[in-house]
């Protein structure tokens, strides 16, 4: 919506488009908000990342250099941070989808009363502060926490399982945070699929499973794609989960951004990390979308 509005205003105002101009005004608050809170800070970041770092102060104003990018793209320390963030995010995306899809499917198939209850259960975590959710997981997963305590009492394990302060903990945290969004997105797309399509497939001789594979699943790919995007983008930028549930296995980019800004006081490098992360996300989304479009066209032909 914002995109459309900006292209219209930049297209110039002819007499015939006066009527349209009225509508364009409606987009102004959204455009202003986006500019003030997203575009301008990112431009600032971009500018800072191209400045010279000066020990003692954050950066030297008015200077130009590519130093921070050279370091980020050559130093294996940073490359490892990027690959860890990317790897965990891909894992989180796959696991998140694997959990969200069956739940969304179940919600969509439920009767009206159960549906309300299930949707409510999905939405409740969205009302809860993320830190509260994460501390909740700490209580459950920590070595002396509820999970290990329970398993030990049952005699199923002798020593506590390492399920937090490692990659597993991060994955649990991010999957939990993004799951409600993924479920809601997929459930909405599933609800939009005409029931008679599945019935028709069954009538034409497809078993329940085949009808799902040939009709429901392909028709829900837009939902899967949107949910995957939300989970992936969220995970790539996630800070709280790796900070509180992660351990020595690796660091997320956002954690390093924070320490560059607040501890090392190297603003150009911190800003460079942020801009690189942002560019990486955009690049991956564009590549994924293009790949999806190409395969869709090939399968249609």
């Amino acid at each position, binding site marked *: 919506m914002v995109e459309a509005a900006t292209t219209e205003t930049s297209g110039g105002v002819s007499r015939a488009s006066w009527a349209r101009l009225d509508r364009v005004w409606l987009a102004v608050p959204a455009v202003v908000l986006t500019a003030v809170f997203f575009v301008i800070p990112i431009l600032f970041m971009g500018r800072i990342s191209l400045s010279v770092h000066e020990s003692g102060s954050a950066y030297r104003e008015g200077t130009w250099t590519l130093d921070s990018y050279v370091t980020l793209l050559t130093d294996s320390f940073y490359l490892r941070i990027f690959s860890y963030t990317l790897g965990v995010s891909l894992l989180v995306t796959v696991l998140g989808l694997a959990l969200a899809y069956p739940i969304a499917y179940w919600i969509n198939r439920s009767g009206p009363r159960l549906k309300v209850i299930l949707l409510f259960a999905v939405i409740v975590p969205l009302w809860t502060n993320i830190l509260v959710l994460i501390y909740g997981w700490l209580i459950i997963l920590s070595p002396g926490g509820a999970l290990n305590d329970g398993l030990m009492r049952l005699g199923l394990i002798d020593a506590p399982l390492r399920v937090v302060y490692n990659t597993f903990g991060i994955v649990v945290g991010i999957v939990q945070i993004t799951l409600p969004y993924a479920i809601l997105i997929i459930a909405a797309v599933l609800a939009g699929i005409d029931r008679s399509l599945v019935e028709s497939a069954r009538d034409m*001789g497809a078993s329940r499973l085949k009808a799902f594979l040939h009709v429901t699943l392909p028709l829900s790919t837009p939902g899967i794609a949107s949910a995957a995007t939300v989970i992936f983008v969220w995970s790539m930028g996630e800070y709280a989960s790796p900070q509180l549930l992660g351990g020595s296995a690796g660091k997320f980019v956002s954690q390093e951004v924070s320490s560059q800004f607040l501890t090392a006081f190297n603003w150009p490098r911190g800003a460079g990390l942020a801009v690189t992360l942002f560019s990486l996300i955009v690049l991956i989304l564009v590549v994924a979308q293009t790949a999806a479009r190409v395969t869709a066209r090939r399968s249609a032909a």
Partner: protein
Amino acid sequence: MKDASAESMKDRVAPPGGGATTPDLEVQGLCKHFGSVVAVDSIDFTVDSGEFVSILGPSGCGKTTTLRMVAGLEEVTAGRIFIRGRDVTHLPPEKRNTAMVFQSYALFPHMNVHDNVAFGLKMRGVAKAEIDDRVAMAMRRVRLEGYEKRKPSQLSGGQRQRVAVARAIIVEPAILLLDEALTNLDRRLRQQLQLELKELQVELGITSLFVTHDQEEALTMSDRIIVMDEGLIAQNAEPSEVYDRPASAFVAGFIGESNRLDGSVVAAGDEACTIRTDAGLDLVGVHAGHVGHVAHVGRQCAVMVRPRAITLHAERPAKDNVIEGVVKLWAYKGESYEYVVTLPGGGDLLVSLPRREAVFERGDRVFAAFDARDVIVVERG
């Protein structure tokens, strides 16, 4: 078999199985309740091999529910369904060998026309080469050659309908089920596709159960019509019989126009019976079809007369039934003239004259006449 009435069918037991006389579809005591709503209330009927049977009835009478139970898309509350003698009551839809054409067509939007039509064969594990041959043949049958690569969204309503029909007939189902399959099309296209569909059905000898609420469509296309009302079968007979000898006032009113006069039987002989209307007119009807079982003296009944069965005269004619009235208004209807005649004692009579045989004007005193055999006597209700 074709003219077996609903009554005699009720008495039949489970089909013998395998014999040449086994109907393609037999439904026994079929019921469907949705909570407290009784959608279908214990119905029985059969569809013979190659027969085209329509289920006709007003909105909400249970037509779609019946069809969906036959297809296996709806659990039955009670009753049994046999397809070619096999009890399929509790089989899932994919094991029934039915093929349904949905009102919305339900074409798979992500597949092109070829893949849509091929779907049933693919699910049955037919080899690719044979699928391609049969798809090509089905596409020829519905006159859609050259559209194989299109997506359903790139087709017109009529073309989509044809794809839906092609997709259904290609699997050579035991019974073809059509739910208001032509309702979403405009009138002209609908009439054309009615003829095409009927032609295809006869050519392939495909057993069909067709749901519609359009009485004209049912009369044109069917070998037999099952008229439903509030979950029950009101009549199960050939189109001409449903039209000429409706089983009830409901059927007479639903199929074609008719005049209704309420009254009671005052005399019942071997050949004819006399009904006195509530307005005090004596009408003579003959014993035929459904007159019989209501023609007991003193019995309340309704007399139905089709507008086309009535003639108008300036002088009292020599006919079985003559009613004197006054022309209230008339209208030109293209093929015919329609008159509304006010009867003594109140009530109007609708009369349809094929051409303007005699010129009557508003306020003219006329004699409306009709034969005893055109009088349909049915139970009130």
